[in-house]
């Protein structure tokens, strides 16, 4: 095992024990998507049947992957607040004074966040089965992979923002400002194929819209779809760039 991986596992184990001691946060993160599932999902069933331009597959096969991506984005977006708390307590500095690789110090946390996210995603998918989702197991697995990549991306970005801003008061408005357009332009709630032309074009510039479409293709079992390949590429790209950015930020002295 190479040294950075071993070091990342040390950080991962430490961070995981910390969150298992207060698992209530894992549950709270699930409540919002479950409410969407229960209160918004049923609205879509009749709309999906009656609306021309609604993507193929039944309403749940369209809606659940969107919810999973939403979980991937919003579940990981706020991890930076935890880091700010640790910075204030001096824990981050204590880790930075060790010879452990800066990548490992970051990636150990990202691994923890991603694992938590995957657990939530599995629970959400299982609950969706009870609502009548027809599951294509291979597609669901691919979607979980996409969710994991998004988790890596968003938690890295959240840590980057936290390290640069160094304050909750600055981080909270930034996240609010970014999250709403990202959500609306991703087609998570309603597919962007329903949008007028200008809005659809705008949404194409949002990498998350490709990720959502890819996940939908996987969920209905359309493994040959170009949108699936595009979604995987977009998610992998987001993860790689974010991780690189966050590692750089972690290595900087001001972090």
């Amino acid at each position, binding site marked *: 095992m190479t*040294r950075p991986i071993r*070091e990342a596992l*040390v*950080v991962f*184990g*430490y961070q995981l*024990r*910390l969150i298992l*001691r*207060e698992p209530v946060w894992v549950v709270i993160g699930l409540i919002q998507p479950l409410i969407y599932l229960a209160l918004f999902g049923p609205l879509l069933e009749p709309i999906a049947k009656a609306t021309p331009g609604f993507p193929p597959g039944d309403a749940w096969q369209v809606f659940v992957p969107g919810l999973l991506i939403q979980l991937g984005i919003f579940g990981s977006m706020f991890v930076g607040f935890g880091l700010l708390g*640790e910075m204030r*307590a*001096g*824990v981050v*500095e*204590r*880790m*930075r*004074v*060790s*010879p*452990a690789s800066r990548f490992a110090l970051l990636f150990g946390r990202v691994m923890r966040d991603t694992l938590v996210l995957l657990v939530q995603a599995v629970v959400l998918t299982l609950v969706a089965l009870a609502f009548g989702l027809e599951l294509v197991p291979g597609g669901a697995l691919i979607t979980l992979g996409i969710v994991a990549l998004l988790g890596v991306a968003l938690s890295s970005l959240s840590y980057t923002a936290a390290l640069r801003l160094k304050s909750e008061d600055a981080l909270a408005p930034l996240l609010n400002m970014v999250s709403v357009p990202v959500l609306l332009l991703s087609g998570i709630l309603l597919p962007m194929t329903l949008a007028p032309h200008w809005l659809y074009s705008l949404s194409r510039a949002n990498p998350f819209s490709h990720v959502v479409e890819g996940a939908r293709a996987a969920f209905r079992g359309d493994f040959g779809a170009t949108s699936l390949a595009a979604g995987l590429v977009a998610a992998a790209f987001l993860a790689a760039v974010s991780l690189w950015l966050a590692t750089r930020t972690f290595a900087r*002295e001001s972090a």
Partner: protein
Amino acid sequence: MITTRGLARTFKTRAGLVEAVRGVDFEVAAGEIVGFLGPNGAGKTTTQRMLATLLAPTAGEATVAGADLRREPRRVRERIGYVAQGGMTNPTALVAEELVMQARLFGIPRPDAEARARRLLAELDLAGLDARPVKTLSGGQRRRLDIALGLVHGPPLVFLDEPSTGLDPHSRANLWGHIRGLRDRDGATVFLTTHYLDEADALCDRILVIDHGRVVAEGSPEALKRRVSGDVVTLALDGDPAAAAALLAAQPNVRAVQPVDGGVRVTVERGDAEAIALMRVLDGAGVRVASLSVARPSLDDVFLTMTGRSLRDDAPAAAPGGAP
């Protein structure tokens, strides 16, 4: 163990530039306990954070534990321990878990890390607290855990930023014993900051006095006290201390006079000989002397002489931006 050449750090703030450290040059030899003594805002923490690779210097160079600070930060980190002034523990983590994690970040395998954690907890009077969440510790216990976190990997060079803050006299004595043990038993080098003169006096082989980001004096506690060259005669007076101070300042053998609460402090060459003469002068002027004491200079006197300020004042540092 440490060599610095013109090490400096300036912070940019909204209000302007803060020159926290303005080019310090000093050496710390292997096996020494060196104290960094200075008032609030003098630049002690900033210097230590630079040497511990946590803060990039804006100018200057340093060699720390045999490695170049700028070019080989990783090699520096492998050989140092650092205890921050403000603590470094996670409130929800468990005591032993913190120590084991820290040791493992230094590449120490788990069983060894656990053994080290147990030994250190016992040595710092924390035995039996292994499974407690950090947030349930008392302030002094938490401080001792901070110190343990800086020592758990057995570094040859240790930076301690005000290690004894918040410790009761017993724990403080125990900590001093432990720090001496690091030097005598493990051959470690210790570079610590402190406000406590008795601590610097009792513990340090050598002291660096820092003020406004510059090293203004250095030497062993004894040598520094000799540099002040003079004894301190403290006279408790019934009359007006200011008038008496003016009177005494005019005497030929008096080096310095400082009014203090209810009296004056006079620095003279030989206290035993001069004390009587000083009393006679005051008698002659009709000022009644209630009591008199003669003392060899303390480090506080050294500090007063070097900087014109008393360490004990602990006045908030004037913005060093404009000051010389």
